[in-house]
């Protein structure tokens, strides 16, 4: 911060145009670095740091260094709004990456649009970029690309009837609507059972799924309900395969479910286990490269949430290459809208109406839980 101010002062006194060219491109990383959703924000901060180092090591963007300023939202939407304002008005950033959660992104997006600063959020909900607004883009795989991946997997395994267990919160209901819309297209039928996220026993729902004689059970819910359902299913020896949504692709799920998740399946972004992706998958090389780079830099494998930040910076990096004149807020936005590349989340083909990842070849894999660890099928 201080050095930036000093640099600004130096430029002001010299008033020289060439000095401006050496001024860094400022990127605001607005993440929850503390608080309840810090498990998402911290790997994303590391991912941005990694990308900035990579870019600066090869000379920055058009000779200008990339300077990242980190802001801690604590997972709080109000705070995210304040910090985005601060980044735009006080720190004069050229690009905003983040926030990580849907709530924060929905709150912060209007500011980016009003102040005309490009923002690449990592929200898991489609509502942030549907309909697309001029300055807001999104990198995370949302449920509209996740559900077809599930249905394709089920088709491959020959399942005809799905018992879908959804929570009555936003995540569950959004998933339910998509399954209802898409299941018929794959020639499958759906039975749905619901529960409140805080419910303590889902025996009745599992019983109904068992009686419906579905080929597979799909659980679409956030913590902690899936772990309870697995306990209930184990207690009554539920006979069919059980799948969990990508909300459960974490060590936390293994910890909560213990032995009851044995031999069940979890869908996840390939970043959790890139080797599970087939070699001919178009995203495989990108993901392997990012996975290895992250691991080499931090001596730990990346959490799948890191890929949203890795993609955001990769998109910005590719956009800069398309800019002919000066790098500023407007030229960055226009170039980002022309993005056409394979990232860690999938294939990005932005247009004035599409500001999120496409559902083509989504790098989602289905892992099996073996000895309380994720393993390729």
């Amino acid at each position, binding site marked *: 911060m201080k050095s930036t101010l000093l640099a600004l002062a130096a430029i002001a006194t010299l008033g020289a145009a060439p000095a401006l060219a050496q001024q860094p491109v400022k990127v605001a990383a607005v993440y929850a670095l503390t608080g309840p959703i810090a498990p998402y924000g911290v790997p994303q901060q590391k991912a941005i740091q990694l990308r900035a180092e990579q870019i600066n090591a090869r000379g920055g963007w058009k000779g200008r260094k990339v300077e990242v300023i980190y802001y801690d939202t604590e997972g709080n939407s109000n705070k995210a709004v304040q910090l985005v304002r601060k980044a735009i008005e006080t720190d004069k950033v050229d690009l905003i990456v983040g926030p990580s959660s849907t709530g924060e992104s929905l709150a912060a997006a209007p500011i980016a649009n009003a102040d005309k600063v490009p923002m690449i959020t990592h929200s898991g909900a489609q509502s942030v970029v549907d309909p697309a607004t001029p300055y807001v883009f999104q990198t995370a795989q949302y449920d509209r690309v996740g559900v077809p991946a599930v249905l394709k997997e089920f088709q491959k395994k020959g399942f005809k009837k799905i018992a879908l267990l959804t929570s009555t919160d936003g995540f569950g209901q959004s998933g339910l609507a998509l399954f209802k819309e898409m299941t018929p297209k794959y020639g499958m039928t759906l039975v749905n059972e619901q529960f409140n996220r805080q419910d303590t026993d889902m025996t*009745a729902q599992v019983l109904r799924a068992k009686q419906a004689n579905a080929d597979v059970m799909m659980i679409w819910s956030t913590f902690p309900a899936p772990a309870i359902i697995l306990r209930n299913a184990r207690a009554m020896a539920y006979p069919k395969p059980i799948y969990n949504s990508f909300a459960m692709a974490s060590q936390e799920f293994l910890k909560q479910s213990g032995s009851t998740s044995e031999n069940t399946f979890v869908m996840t972004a390939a970043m959790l286990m890139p080797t599970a992706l087939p070699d001919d998958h178009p995203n495989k090389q990108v993901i392997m490269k990012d996975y290895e780079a992250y691991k080499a830099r931090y001596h730990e494998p990346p959490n799948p949430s890191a890929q949203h930040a890795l993609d955001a910076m990769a998109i910005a990096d590719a956009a800069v290459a398309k800019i002919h004149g000066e790098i500023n807020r407007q030229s960055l936005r226009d170039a980002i809208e022309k993005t056409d590349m394979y990232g860690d989340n999938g294939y990005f083909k932005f247009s004035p109406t599409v500001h999120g990842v496409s559902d083509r070849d989504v790098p989602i894999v289905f892992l099996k839980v073996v000895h309380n660890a994720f393993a390729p099928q």
Partner: protein
Amino acid sequence: MAAQIFVSGLLIGCVYALVAWGFTIVYNATGLINFAAGEFVMMGSVISAALSIKLGWPALIAAPVSICAVTAIAALMDWGCLQRAKRQTPLALGMLTIGIGIVLRGAMLFSFGKDFQFPPAFSDGEIPAILGVNIPTQGAWVFGTVFIAAILLWQLFARSWLGWSMRAAGESRRAAVLMGISPRNVSTTAFAMAGAMGALAGALIAPLASANYTSGLFFGLKGFSAAILGGIGSPLGAVAGGLILGVLENIAAGYMSSGWKDAIALGILILVLLIKPTGIFGGRSVKRV
């Protein structure tokens, strides 16, 4: 399927019953509705989960320790806060219990974190299905412990001096004082007992339903509904109300619509109250109005 749904309903109903009984004890002794009752359940589950997961204590030690801790917190809440309030009206004290509940929730968040924890069950092994009904091992612990606790509490209230004085203080505070009963001690004892019962419920259900600092509201609401359904003030009503609510919820989820489960169960609660406003086993409470 019917038997399984019934038994699962009874299982969660046992937990509701303990919370409802806690409401009843405090109500009978002080005339107060203790809105922090759900937080006792939450603390019982969070503390026992922390002891058994983070410190590796066996569940059969972690659970009693957490019950003692919550009992002490509940007694302290009454002695240190409610009894010292300037305005001793039911409304002011009721609001205080809401405030204390929020403080307790925050305290648990900061002390034990926000994660959902599943502590190990009290014992290993699996119970074979009886007549097609599966009961998890922890479920057997819930049934057994609640049954024993109910008998003990019943004896305490019906036969002991403590039970008499608690009922007397609830009936008429003034007359109780004249008979040499200290309403303050009775009130603190009532809170301590409600704390112990809530914590017992929390420690029992945590291995099945997870422990988290936010779960208090849920259990408080369910326990309160059960107490109202049974007729507030009646211990028998509290137990019956809890079991009925648990079974109703499961029948609604199993035979009607799982998404509407709570709405159906609470809709029936409203219906019962319209037909019999004092609750199924109530009657005495009308006199208070």
